[in-house]
């Protein structure tokens, strides 16, 4: 069963932490996408 933790403190650092993780994930996604495009271009040429 899923355990739930309620965080009512609007100033909690947790949200900042989750936003930071989301930002890192977005950076990784862009890096991966760039590499995929480079591979595609290399295949074409």
């Amino acid at each position, binding site marked *: 069963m899923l355990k739930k*933790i309620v*965080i009512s*403190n609007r100033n909690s650092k947790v949200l900042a932490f989750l936003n930071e993780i989301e930002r890192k994930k977005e950076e*990784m996604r862009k890096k991966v996408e760039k590499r995929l495009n480079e591979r595609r271009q290399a295949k074409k040429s």
Partner: protein
Amino acid sequence: MNGDKQKNHNAHMPRALESYDYYVDEENNGEKYFTFETPDAVYTVYFNPNEYKNRVADYPLLLNNTHGFGFFQFIRDGVTIPKNDIKIRRTIENIICDFYRENPNAILLYHCYYADGKQHKRSKKFERWYNESAAKNLITKHEIGLEILTGEEYITHYIGYLISNANKEIDSVHKEFETFALSFPDDKGG
């Protein structure tokens, strides 16, 4: 490493036959990217030892063994919704099992992407994949929901981990993760 017993355990990780081939990119900082292509999209599964490092600094087992885990989907131009392809799930299972063969002590920490508001759907889908997986008896999955007051409403975030059942520290890791998660409500801003 926890010795030969654990290596043997992980050597028996199942391998789905109907799956896509993948290739691996490894970076100098330890990040690993496993990529495969379907007719509709390209998928990359990542294992990133640095993703959560700052946050778990006070939790030695998590600090030394955690890899951020997740995957990206790049849909091909002109394709709106990829078909429901079971080989995608099986390939991701194979990648996770292969990763555990090489990294038997790994703790794969994840949280469901929430920027588009679909984190609940992602959590449910991952739970279904796990429950239907042949690796379920070899890998434990544990997830918690964090209901965080954001503006005037509570938004639920899902954070969890995967760990090999052969990991001798499995109970200690569970306790550390629970302590880590339970510390969130007291985590005042500043």
